[in-house]
């Protein structure tokens, strides 16, 4: 079995069933869970409560999940809970006991990765409406020596992003993330600033993919990319999907990157273009 998802539907939530009950029932029948990927979906009232009890249960029963190498905590959609309303908790204990290669998290209220430490973690993705600076610091301070893919939906201040560019710059320091090949600093209201800092940083040189999608990247960012096009020539992919770049600069960028072997994704997608950058929003800003 490759993956398994435990979640509560409407009726189960109403009846007071918990995810732990459901895992327990599964384990009673199957003894162990052989899945490599464990997905935790909607738990009871995710807009009010975090998954602390589920995490505790998983940690206490780690031996029942001998093959798990990937986890997704908070796989729910807006029918179940708005992304920006999903309450999380400190998920570091999962990394202490499971040899995870991938950890994907949705939702960031109360999310922490305190003193996180994992020799195995290669991929960390956090989807949110806004990441708090405490969490950003947790990630910078964490010991993830083998991390290759780091993808952070930074978000907006209305939904939990309480930092500034100085809290994001540490993700561009190669020494902090020596093996990162995929860097996603995305879905940010500071996308132009991120773009500016990226070109000053020492991380770009050894990246394969730079993902600055889903944010408010505008002409300022586009012009920086045009000026520094030589610095992205080694990338296999530059993702700028969903942006606020003008038609003129989109055309310039397309012409300039056409000659590169880098795949550049520049579709404006659903972005509601507005001349006035006060009215620009990242993709997930609920």
């Amino acid at each position, binding site marked *: 079995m490759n993956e398994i998802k435990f979640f509560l*539907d409407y*009726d189960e939530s109403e009846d007071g069933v918990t995810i732990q009950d459901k895992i327990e029932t599964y384990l009673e029948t199957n003894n162990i869970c052989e899945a490599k990927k464990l997905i935790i979906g909607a738990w009871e009232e995710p*807009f009010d409560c975090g998954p602390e009890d589920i995490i505790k249960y998983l940690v206490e029963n780690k031996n029942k999940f001998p093959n798990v190498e990937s986890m997704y905590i908070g796989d729910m959609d807006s*029918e179940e809970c708005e992304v920006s*309303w999903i309450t999380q908790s400190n998920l570091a204990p999962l990394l202490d006991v499971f040899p995870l290669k991938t950890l994907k998290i949705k939702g960031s*209220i109360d999310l922490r990765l305190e003193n996180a430490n994992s020799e195995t973690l290669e991929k960390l993705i956090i989807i949110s409406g806004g990441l708090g600076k405490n969490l950003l610091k947790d990630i910078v301070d964490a010991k993830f020596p083998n991390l290759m893919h780091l993808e952070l939906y930074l978000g907006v201040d209305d939904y939990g992003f309480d930092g500034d560019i100085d809290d994001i710059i540490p993700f561009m320091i190669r020494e902090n993330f020596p093996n990162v090949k995929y860097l996603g600093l995305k879905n940010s209201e500071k996308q132009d600033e991120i773009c500016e800092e990226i070109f000053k940083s020492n991380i770009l040189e050894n990246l394969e993919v730079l993902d600055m999608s889903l944010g408010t990247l505008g002409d300022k960012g586009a012009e920086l990319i045009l000026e520094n096009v030589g610095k992205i020539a080694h990338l296999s992919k530059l993702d700028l999907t969903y942006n606020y770049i003008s038609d003129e600069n989109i055309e310039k960028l397309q012409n300039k990157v056409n000659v590169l072997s880098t795949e550049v994704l520049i579709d404006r997608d659903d972005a509601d273009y507005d001349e006035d950058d006060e009215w620009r929003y990242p993709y997930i800003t*609920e």
Partner: protein
Amino acid sequence: MNINFLLVGDLSGRRIQTFANCLRKLNYNNITIITWTEIFKDISVFEENLKPNTIIKIEPPEKDMEIYRGFLKHGIEKGKLSERDIDKIDFSDFKIIAPDQWYYGFTKIMEQLDKLCIKNKFKNLYLMNNIAEMLVMMDKKQTYEVLEKKLDNEKFYLPQKLYSPKNYDEFKSLYGNKSMKVFIKLRYGSGSTGVLGYANNIKLQDELVYTSLNNNSNNFYSNYKVNRFTEKTKVKELINWVLENGAHIESWIPKDKYNGKAFDTRSFVINKKSAYLLTRMSKSPITNLHLKNQRANSVEIMTEENLEIIRNASEGVMNIFNKSLYAGIDVVTTSRNKPYIIDVNPFGDLFHNLIGIDKNVHFLEIKKAIEIIRGE
């Protein structure tokens, strides 16, 4: 038997012509069309056209806002708008105004038409719509109550109902101390008209509303787009308007997903059998097709077992509305395939670009109505 057809409706929309074209295709050419405007002028036009062996089909008002005005005038007795007020309404922005008064006016006219049909019963008439049941189905609160009473005998479920307060402040004092997700539905709104998908988060003190309803100060109208509002004043204005105009509130059942999109299914039930299923998919919680949502062939995206659950649920609804020939039943299935009824539409037989079947559902209606009038 030489059969006549009498269609009552609004020529500004597509319904009357679509149905008449189906009749012509089947070589039924004795078709008389009466508009609502003619009925308002002199209701005897209806009786004059009740020839022997007539099948009658009532279609709802569509885009002609003068018809809206007409029904409002017939509802003056129980409404807040006087004839003078109604004459002054500028309908150029298709505003929704006094839906309860509109419903009362519509009811009055319908009851008169029903009486005329009973009076002329000896002519062998068949009215495809059962007026009493149609009027219940046009009221979301009454529909819920009727279904709730007989729920236990059928294979469907209803979302939990909540008491509907008079306005936003009362709503907040009643429900404001807990996080919740509900649909606040305009009682006399058709389909998605005046439906608010409402969620609040106590912890963040956030509220949000998904709706196709919008307003420009005191003018409320339907959009062709589902918007998401979080701004407090806007949320309050929208909720106030729906509650003040009569609402039905029920819990928000998370819909099952297909390709990352939430979906529900319209089941067209005729003669107590589900004859056509159409799934509507959306990124927003409101799936109605006129809101530019995506349609899908239910048969292609669901297992036979799931389809059967939806068929049984919708047929269960029509076992309760058992005097009606047809209706469109909207069924939400949860991720574990539990079927919830979220809307019953007495005019739910207009499907544009049917997929998966080669015949318009009107052919089924015509066939059955003819069998009935012939006493077969």
